[in-house]
């Protein structure tokens, strides 16, 4: 076990009268690759978005190296630059080239100079196999390529944790592999990752931890062997059996 990076305590989130998350507790240690699985609507995206402060938690704490970031008086921008996020819908900047997408955050947020930003952007684009496309605009590349650029853009900020919200769900089947390959390589290098996914093979083979969410609560969690090999809860068994049959 490495040092603790994030600790979520009693996190709840309510939209109007709809309680989407209730009393979520879990921790993220350095080097963890945590897969969050669960049916659609169970609150997985909301959990990630709360962790990145894209949503404001209704109650509870999110401790980043022991400091609560969910309260007032916190600069969310500085914190967000330490916690990267990769979205289902890529969310690349359409007015910039692939290279500029990976440079703008370094220049504007990290205040690096253009040369340094360019060098590290190139390194990460190389890593995700997108170096050939640095001059392309997002509308000119495929979905899988967009997602790889989005990963490089997040990596270029040199974050401590990367959050992935169903990174392959918007992709055509042919392109899922290229994105998972990149994510697997990151996991192998020791990147701390929190991955919401429906790719059960990835959750089973790549992650160090699996969290099964059901109706806004963490229903079951453990190592992949525990959750996939010997699920304790009936809900988990039902959920997993749907994937085996599929």
């Amino acid at each position: 076990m490495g040092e603790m990076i994030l600790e979520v305590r009693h996190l709840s989130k309510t939209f109007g009268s709809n309680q989407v998350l209730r009393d979520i507790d879990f921790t993220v240690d350095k080097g963890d690759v945590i897969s969050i699985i669960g049916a659609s609507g169970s609150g997985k995206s909301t959990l990630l978005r709360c962790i990145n402060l894209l949503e404001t938690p209704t109650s509870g704490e999110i401790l980043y190296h022991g400091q609560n970031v969910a309260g007032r008086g916190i600069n969310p921008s500085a914190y967000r630059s330490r916690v990267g996020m990769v979205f289902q819908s890529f969310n690349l900047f359409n007015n910039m080239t692939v290279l500029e997408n990976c440079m703008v955050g370094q220049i504007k947020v990290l205040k690096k100079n253009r040369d340094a930003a360019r060098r590290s952007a190139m390194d990460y684009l190389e890593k995700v196999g997108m170096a050939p496309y640095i001059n392309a605009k997002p509308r000119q590349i495929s979905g899988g390529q967009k997602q790889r650029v989005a990963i490089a853009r997040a990596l270029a900020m040199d974050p401590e944790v990367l959050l992935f919200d169903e990174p392959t769900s918007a992709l055509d089947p042919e392109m899922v592999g290229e994105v998972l390959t990149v994510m697997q390589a990151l996991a192998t290098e020791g990147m701390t990752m929190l991955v919401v996914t429906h790719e059960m093979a990835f959750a089973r083979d790549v992650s160090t931890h699996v969290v099964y969410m059901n109706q806004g609560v963490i229903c079951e969690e453990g190592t992949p062997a525990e959750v996939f090999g010997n699920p304790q809860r009936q809900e988990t068994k039902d959920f997993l059996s749907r994937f085996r049959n599929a």
Partner: protein
Amino acid sequence: MEKLVKLGQDMILLWDNYGAAYLSGIVNTVILAVVATVIGCIIGLACGILNTIPYSPQDHAAKRTLLKVVRAIVRIYVEVFRGTPMVLQAVFIYYGLPYFTDGRVAFSGNSGIWLASIIVVSINTGAYMAESVRGGIISIDPGQTEGAMAIGMTHVQTMTNVILPQAIRNIIPQIGNNLIINIKDTSVMFIISFTEFFAWHRYIVGVNNMYFPSAAIEMIGYLTMTLIASFLLRLVEKLMDGSDSYELVQTDPLTMTAGTYNYPDRGTPFDERSKEYRERTKESLKNRNGSTRGER
């Protein structure tokens, strides 16, 4: 046929005598329209940006109140200036200033007329652009804002680097529309004795009664100005869109599908670009036709 020849002769006659006057009118019209469109766009941009600053219940009460007041003021400004004729606004402002200051401050002399005209046309254009800018900002998909926030960009950084460049590109057809309308509608500024192109027509026909030949010269003059304006704006749009293709620096080791190597804008079976492209085209067509100042 001989009527047309006659018309031609009359027009030449008019031009020989008043060519310099017509030309100075054209110059004044163009200067007023361009300056007022630029200032109007800046006003519209400021209003549109102010109107789209997000606030949430977590924000400080003072900030929320301030933003609400700002939005109300912008709303009133837009409604007042879109809801009254520009010719009346010109009179209102030109004569209103000395009225309220007992003649101590007035738009005096030629420079005063210029100043009043620029103010009126700019404010008018700004009222129309405010709504266009707001629409342009809102139409950028919120995912890009989240993408920017997720790498730690502030609201201002997100606006200036991501949202506004795209919003401005999307409203260029509206800007063009406003420029063309301003070229034509500055003609109402004769009411405060601004000597633009149409004012010279009124003066010249008052001297010699050659109504129709002079009107023909005016028609050709206005049409020439507006056609050049449209052409230049198309050119700007093209330049802003940049190249349709890109240089592949080397091959991509991770892509398995042959399709992604294709020149993308043709649309491979595996990508969604053609759909985006269609939507964009549809959007820009809509912008052109559904002009916000169509009713004028």
